[in-house]
Each structure stands twice: as C-alpha cells, then as structure tokens.
C-alpha cells in the first residue's frame, strides 16, 4: 500500500505527505546544503578565479587558466603520479588480502572470527595520528624496530633511512596505508561470504566441484557487489591519502611522497593559492568519479 504512486493518492494526501516529508528532512537538509553542497559549489566556482587565501585579496574570473597551469606544473604532475602509484599498488593488494583473510575466517568459530575482525580493524580505530607517530618511530634510522629486525635477520646490511630515502619513502607510506585500509573490507567480505546461498554451494559440492571451483564459480559471482563497493571505497581512500604524508614526510624527500591531496593543502596554506588549490580539488574529484564509473562498468560486464 505504501508503495502506491502519488497519482493514486488523493491530492490532499499528496500535499500532506510532501509537507511532512520536507519537515522530516529539514534539519538534515540545512546541514547538508550549508556544509556539503555549498562548499562543493564554491570549490568549482573559485577554481575559475585567481582567489588567494588572504581575506582582503581580490579575485578575478580567469576561466580555465588554473586548470591549464595545473597540467604544466611539474610538482602537481609528480604528485598525481605518486597518487596513481599509491592507488595502483594499494587497491589490488587491499582487495586481495582482505578477500583472502575474509575467506579464511568467515567460517571459523564465532569468537575467532570476531577476534580477527577486530584485530584487523584496530589500526583504523587507533586513528591516523597515533598510527603515524608509532610508525615514524618504527621506521626510525637509529632506534627503529624495522632496521633492528632487518639488519639482525640479515635482510639488509646497513640501517636504511626509510623515510629519508626517495627510493623507499613512498613504499613506507603505502605499507602504513595498507594496514589502515584492510579493516573495513574484511568486515564486508566476512558478512558477504556468510550470506552466500548455501544450497548452491552444496549442489556444486555434490556435483564434485573442488573448493577452488566452488569459490570462483559459486561464491565469487555472489560477492561481486561487495567487491565492487570495496574497490570504490579503497580507491577513494587511497586518492585522499593525506594525514600520513603531512605527519611523516611533508611530501619529501624531493617530492617523492607528494600526493595530490597533500599538494592541495600545501598550495592553499603555504602558497596561499586558493583558486588553484580548488582547481586541483576538482581534478581529483573528477579522477575519482571517472575511476569509480569504470569500476562499475567492469564489474557489470563481468557479472
């Protein structure tokens, strides 16, 4: 009954429903429009001006100049490349690892399954600042655990300056990002695998399918929507990698760990280029939107 179309309801009822609907929505809409939609619009609008961060600065409409400058800005291109590297490395590894862990733990005893879920989620809850602080110590040149363990096990001969060496810095960032990214996907995979239709699994087993076949032929198609969601959220998170960079390396050494998000922050607060920073924000948002769309398309065509 409640699903009937407005056309089938009396006019008075439609009006009543509309008024009630908007009254219920009002408190939420006020916050949504003021603190989400308005800044989004301002982001696009100011990206077409040469506005600065200072309050008194004038701002003139300069069309697409910020966007053109952007793609001639070597630092930005380097930041974009680093961001792409982070995304390309972290998204598949996060997905594969969390699927593997999820598949291992979802049919364990209840307490064991929750324990593992909690453990893999803990780095997310601990918070980026606390996590970063402790990793900075772990990576430390003289008194870091990593160098101690590595040199004692003979994995590398001399202490390595992990965060100070442009060969390793980005990899170190990606490792921390990885530990703080797998928590949510694991929770999602555990619940998705638990919801897989058991009759199909049993039918396949009766037909003599191996575990691997059951997984890829029966379970995998059913958890596809979850995989898709995980791909999208991990991509968004990796693109927005900021706190780690700001706290650990500030984009150094020699821009080896600059990411787009960090460069936006840098442009706005160190270079005071407000319009320019927003143009970067728009480009970043477009990249994410495009990538999410591609992932949707791919996943759809596969299933």
């Amino acid at each position, binding site marked *: 009954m409640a699903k009937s179309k407005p056309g089938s309801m009396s006019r008075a009822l439609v009006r009543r*429903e509309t008024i009630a609907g908007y009254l219920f929505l009002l*408190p939420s809409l006020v916050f*949504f429009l003021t603190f989400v939609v308005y800044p989004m619009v*301002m982001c696009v609008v100011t990206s077409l001006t040469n506005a600065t961060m200072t309050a008194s600065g004038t701002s003139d409409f300069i069309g697409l100049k910020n966007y053109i400058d952007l793609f001639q800005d070597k630092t930005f291109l380097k930041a974009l490349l680093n961001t792409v590297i982070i995304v390309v490395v972290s998204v598949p590894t996060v997905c594969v690892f969390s699927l593997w862990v999820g598949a291992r733990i979802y049919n364990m005893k209840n307490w064991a399954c929750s324990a593992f879920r909690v453990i893999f989620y803990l780095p997310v*809850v*601990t*918070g980026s600042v606390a996590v970063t602080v*402790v990793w900075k110590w772990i990576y430390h040149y003289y008194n870091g655990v990593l160098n101690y363990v590595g040199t004692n096990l003979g994995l590398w001969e001399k202490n390595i300056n992990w965060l100070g060496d442009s060969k390793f810095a980005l990899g170190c960032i990606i490792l921390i990002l990885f530990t703080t990214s797998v928590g949510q996907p694991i929770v999602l995979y555990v619940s998705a695998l638990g*919801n897989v239709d058991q009759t199909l699994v049993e039918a396949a087993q009766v037909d003599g399918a191996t575990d691997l076949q059951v997984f890829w032929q029966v379970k995998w198609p059913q958890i596809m929507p979850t995989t898709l969601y995980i791909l999208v959220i991990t991509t968004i998170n990796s693109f927005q990698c900021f706190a780690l960079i700001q706290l650990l390396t500030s984009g150094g050494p020699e821009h080896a760990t600059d990411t787009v998000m960090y460069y936006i922050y840098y442009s706005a607060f160190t270079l005071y280029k407000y319009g320019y920073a927003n143009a970067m924000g728009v480009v970043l948002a477009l990249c994410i939107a495009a990538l999410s769309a591609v992932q949707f398309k791919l996943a759809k065509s596969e299933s």
Partner: protein
Amino acid sequence: MNTGVKRTSVYRTITLILIIVIAAVIFLFPLYWILTGAFKTPGAVNSSTPEWWPKEWTLRNFETLFDKRSAPLWEFHIPLSEWFTEDHSQVVFFAGPVLPAAFRWLINTVFMSVAAMILTCGTAALAGYALAKKRFIGRAVLFSLIVCAMALPKQVILIPLLREMDGLHLTNTLWSVIFPVVGWPFGVFLMKQFAEGIPGEILEAARIDGGGELKTFTTIVFPMIKPGVGALAIFTFINTWNDYFMQLLMLTGTNVLSMPLGISKMMGEFGQDYGLLMAGAALASVPIIIVFLAFQKYFTKGITMGAVKG
C-alpha cells in the same frame, strides 16, 4: 591414499592459520608499541636495541605530557553568538580549574564526538525515514543528490569549507568540526536502508488511527530503526574522533585542540621524544579503542548495512 590427502590438507590448514596469526600479530604490533612505549624510560626509547618488554616502567612521559601547557577545564562557545552581541564578540563560558592542556584536548575530542553523534543520529533518523517511507515530490532528485555527494571525496571540500566557516565566525570553535560531520549524507543513507524495512501496513494503520506524524515517528518508527541508529552513533563517534584533516584545518588555538591534533603539534615541537609521543598517542587511542570494543557488534552492522544494500 585417502588419509594422505587428508593429512596434507591438515598441514595446509595449519599453515594457513599460522600465516593469518602472524599477520594479526603484525597488525597488533603498532598498538602494542604505543602502549609499552608510553611507559618506557628515555634510555630504553632511544637505544638502538629495542626493549621488547619495558624493563623499567615509568610514568615520566605522562607527567611531561601533562606539564606542557595548561587550559581551563571547560569552555563552551555558543555557535553564531557573535552575530547577536553588540561588539561581535563570541559568547564563551569558562568553568573549572586550570588543568594540563592534554585533559582539555581529551574533553574537546569527547565533546566533538558526542555532539556530532547526537546531532547526526537525530537528523539522519528523521530524514532517512522520510526518504524511505514518504512519497513526496522531489524525493528521487534529493536522493540522487545525496548518493552523488557521498561518492565525492570529502576532503576536497574542506578548503572551501574553511573559508565558509571563517565567514560564519566559526573557525577555531569545536562547532566547525561538528557541523560538517552532521551534514555528511552517509547517515541519511544508512538510516534510509534501515527504515526501508518497516512494513508499510504498520504506518498505514497508525495513520488511520489518527496518530500525528511526529507521534508515529517516535512511537513506531524510531523503535524499529534503533539498531541502525546505534550503528550510526558508534560510526559517527569514532570517525569524528579520528577526523584529523578537518580538525587540522579548523582548530588552531591551544584551548580548542583535539587529542590527535595535540599530539601532532607535539610531534612538531618535541619530534624526537618518542616516549612522550607514545604517551600522547596512547591517550588519544585507548579511549576510542575501548568504545570500539564495547560497541563492536553495532559497528560491524553499520559497515555492512551501509554497503551491501546500496
């Protein structure tokens, strides 16, 4: 033959479990290192041979942490108040003795998380119910706007948001962190998912009985979506606590710093004193971890509900 296959599969299972346990230990290690590091002496912290278990426990790090700065225990700023005072000054209440600033940061963080949690749950429950159960004009448009906004990167809007907050004279108040969290549409989306499960007949019956809209909401709808509200509450609480970027942009004065921000400031000033930094990190993370462990079930539910049925 058959037993041979079984035996290899037993070995395989044991190896796999071993690998997963090792992975779990690696994931736990940073937290362990924070908690033990907070109680280590400077000598142990700075030695190139790590002390896996502190030989000598000390509270020195916490003492230093609490010594650094001080602030009044409680400060409450009324949002938008400067628009109504004559000299456009903010209306602020102070209370309590002057205490170490770290306490203040902890209180600020708790306040932000609780306020954001209550406001988000209230507004989102109302809105989610309306979107799920009310048939009104413009509903489809609104819902697609919300979904689109959710897919956009949140951090991109922070810099325009900062300027807007400046315009509203809200920067450097805790509200500048709270309000955008409330505006973020994930909560509305999640609540809609839960409210969709309410059978239409019950609402119809309430309408025929002549119950007012608000009464229907409080007596019928809200009890039914309570698990969802619980999930959203814990989700918002943890995310606000850890939303470092937003706090970094909006808050600068010592009195309004959050716990994560306070540590990052200390990292700038006392960068090499890892014992002190671990004490700060422990203070920032232990409360939120306890909250997480206590409400873990709701949390898991929130994560999965927000995803799969989209």
